């Protein structure tokens, strides 16, 4: 009975923070779309949040031990799904990322993120040594590399990159020899250089990266997005232009302002003050996740929570960095704020994993 009572216990602080972030997101989605053909988008997003929330509740009830047991099956399933998406998936914006499930186009790679967290948590928690061996690193690289490669083929550089920090955070926590760390970094650099010069990146990906480095070169080309985003952010000033009063947002200068660049829209209308509040909410979310990891009852739980934290931290870093021109345009959404079914549902399912770990923290 005692355990059953505990199982109803959710991390209310975490939930409060996430709901606050969702509210900011809904508000800004409304502001960005209410006077255009996309008006009413906030209600759709609210539906996604509802679905995600339900999914979170379900996942928080499933014993994560059982999930970890099935990690091989899940892994194979995810590779299969990625392959299917590549072959028969629906094409949006020139990339095969979506497969239709129950009438929704689901972005498979979002689900793969979740599965990689589980698979890596299992791998790391099974290690008995204090330091990762080279063989371990190679296996981890393979585990992440295969799905990442498939996602890269869609092509979706952003999501493929999101898988990497899960491995890095896990490796750091599991214990990595600093020489190995340096080696891996060097290897990463080599891969980046070869990837750039070889034919692994699509032209648009290269262009995005190139214009990221020099946005003012082509005001109407690919650098246009970054420049417009910077203009919106910069013109917001400290207090912002006011809710639904941002000219760059309302007149459509901010690219995909309800999704990838929602933070630019918010920065214009709510100013630095609004950005500060929002980023503090994300900081609180991440620190709360670390707190949950610290209180996990075992290493597997900790790796699960920290995998989630790694992905959120990376997405916030890349998305916010992109909005202010510090990162290339990669199409990585801001968790819980950017409009989008798949990413919202993933976010809540990942929270479900965290809640799952939390409810088990006193169980022996």
């Amino acid at each position, binding site marked *: 009975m005692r355990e059953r009572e505990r199982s109803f216990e959710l991390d209310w602080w975490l939930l409060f923070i996430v709901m606050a972030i969702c509210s900011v997101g809904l508000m800004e989605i409304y502001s960005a779309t209410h006077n255009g053909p996309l008006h009413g988008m906030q209600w759709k997003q609210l539906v996604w949040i509802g679905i995600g929330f339900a999914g979170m509740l379900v996942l928080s009830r499933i014993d994560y*031990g059982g999930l*970890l*047991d099935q990690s091989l099956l899940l892994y194979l399933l995810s590779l299969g799904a990625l392959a299917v998406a590549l072959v028969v998936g629906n094409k949006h914006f020139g990339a095969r990322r979506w497969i239709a499930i129950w009438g929704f186009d689901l972005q498979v790679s979002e689900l793969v993120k979740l599965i990689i967290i589980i698979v890596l948590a*299992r791998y790391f*928690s*099974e290690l008995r040594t204090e330091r990762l061996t080279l063989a371990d690193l190679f296996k981890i690289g393979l585990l992440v590399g295969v799905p990442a490669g498939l996602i890269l083929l869609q092509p979706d550089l952003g999501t493929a990159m999101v898988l990497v920090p899960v491995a890095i*955070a896990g490796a*750091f*926590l*599991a*214990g990595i020899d600093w020489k190995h760390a340096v080696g891996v970094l060097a290897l990463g650099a080599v891969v980046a250089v070869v990837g750039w010069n070889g034919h692994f990146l699509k032209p648009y990906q290269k262009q995005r990266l190139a214009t990221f480095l020099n946005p003012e070169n*082509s*005001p*109407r*080309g690919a650098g246009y997005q970054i420049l*417009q985003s*910077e*203009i*919106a*952010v*910069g*013109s*917001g*000033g*400290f207090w912002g232009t006011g809710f639904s009063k941002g*000219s*760059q947002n309302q*007149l*459509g*200068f901010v690219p995909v302002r309800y999704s990838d660049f929602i933070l630019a829209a918010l*920065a214009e209308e709510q*100013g*630095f003050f609004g*950005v*500060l509040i929002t*980023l*503090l909410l*994300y*900081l609180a979310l*991440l*620190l709360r996740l*670390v707190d949950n*990891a*610290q209180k996990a*009852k*075992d*290493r*597997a739980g*900790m790796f699960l929570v*920290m995998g989630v*934290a790694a992905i959120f*931290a990376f997405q*916030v*870093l890349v998305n*916010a*960095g992109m909005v*202010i*021109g*510090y990162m290339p345009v990669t199409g990585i959404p801001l968790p819980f704020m950017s409009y989008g079914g798949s990413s919202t549902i993933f976010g809540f399912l990942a929270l479900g994993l965290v809640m799952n770990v939390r409810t088990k923290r006193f169980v*022996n």
Partner: protein
Amino acid sequence: MANWIGGDQKLPQGRLILVSYVVVLEFILLLIGFWKLQIVQSGHFADLAEKNRIRSIPIIAPRGKILDRYGRVIVDNYPSFSILLLRDDPVQIKKDLPQITSGLNVTAEDLNQQLLEARDEPKFQPIIVKPEATDADLAFVESHRADLPELELMMVQRRKYPPNDFLAHVIGYVGEVSPEQLEQSGGDRYKPGDIVGKAGLEREYNDILTGTDGMRRVIVNSIGKPVRTLDDTEPIPGKPIQLTIDADLQEVAERELAGTIGAMVAINPQNGEVLAMASRPAFDANDFSVRISRKEWTDLNDNPNKPLLNRAIQAQLAPGSVFKILESVAMLESGTPPPDFHVFCPGYGVFYGQVRHDWDPKGHGEVSLHNAIVHSCDIFFYNVGERLGIDKISYYASSLGLGARTGVDLPSEEPGLVPSQEWEERVYHHKWYPGSTISLAIGQGPIDATPIQLVRSVAGIAMGGVFYQPHLLKDFSPVKVVRFAISPGTVDQVTDGMYGVVNEGGTGVFAYDVLKQAKLQDIQFCGKTGTAQTISNKGLLRLTAAERHSFGYNTWFVGFAPRRNPEIAVAVLVQDTHLEAGGAAAPLAARFMKAYYEKKLGQPIQELQAKAAPSKAASQTQEAAAASAARDQ
């Protein structure tokens, strides 16, 4: 349960804390990034945001109208649209080029040429793809706002010039400001694409005619569609100018000149007002008001008849026998030779060892100054010139208004030329040949005058030595007056001679015929003919008869009425004609006078009534004159 679940595992708490530090660091870095943009560079980006959303569309101020002396509109404006191509995205333009060229019906070569020429100008400076858009063009631009945002419309006020090249040289034309003008103005007064006066009054009074452009600031969305208007700065229209030109007389002058190469200027000797100024051939200023094509421009410039030349102020030609009037003044005023000087004219004479012929080989017999003017006796004036000498001729010619610009309010007036010993030495590096004085005595040789100089000079002599600055602006002020004292006796003698030219069977007898037909023989029309060879006598002798025929005469008639205290003076130049002045220029001047007096006396002007067949009338004039052609000089 598998072995990887268990409470025995220790968590790496230290590393977790390290991770949370990394997370905090991440957020600090992000906040610094936002701080830099939103606080440090906020002003810069706010400016860029304003530029993004606000587009300034100039509202072109209409130029002032040009009115005749009675306030009748000669030059007006009409609204029209120009299609602009915004050039800030060359890649987009290149992509859209086929659609733009086919949609606006322009050739890709022309557009590419324009883009090439504009490549050094600032990017924000649009090019005008189509200066005057048709309804179809407007519909095309409006319907492609979304996919061709680089196209923009601009309303402009265009110049509407009168038909039939009316007053073309005087009005001039407008055009886009040239790079040189832009540079001179230092970028404050003009911006590229501005329309400015390029020639004629449009240029002379550009400052009055030009208004101040207004500005409409509109908010546009990201695809360039105006969402709403922020504010309008209303344009200040240019001020109109009223001219001294009488449109009726101008029309008569142009009708008379139709088909010829020549010019006509009529002024009021009492105040210098220009009543008519015509030059033919002419051009259609409307060709310039939109955008003159390269071909039209080269055609106008390469035309051997020089239609762009305003002959009334720019044709510098030997005045021929008209100069005898100035010489008569010089003779009477200087007393060399004395007023009662007589010569016997056998039709030739020997001066400085060279035989000189009179225009009339029969000779004029015993001639006094009066008869010499009436019949334009060359031998008489050779003798006068010989006695006066170059210095006196030069002094009086200059004093009476030749060799210097009259100061008429038009750009590009030519100064003409009065030779002197000093001039000869400066230009040719040798002393003045006394023989040259003999040619000069009948207005040949190195002496050039423009029609406006001759009409001002003769009118001033008839006014007793009061030379008004000719001007076209009604309230031109101050009108410069040059006074050169001529004794009343001299004025009477000279004007009496000129009266005789027309009314006593002199070289201007055809003018009398015209006036008599119109029962206007009592207006006391006085004048002087002039016929100048276009090449020298020596040159002429070397040519065959057929070749000689291809060189026409430049013929003049300068006259005024009435004999005392004249109210109207006119100079007529007909170039390259095979008639001499009495046949070619004198009847034109007379018909102009007829129209002037018909109008003054309240009669309908006959020339204007016969509008139906102007070219026919003109050719009849020529034929009639040719039929009764007699050597008149």
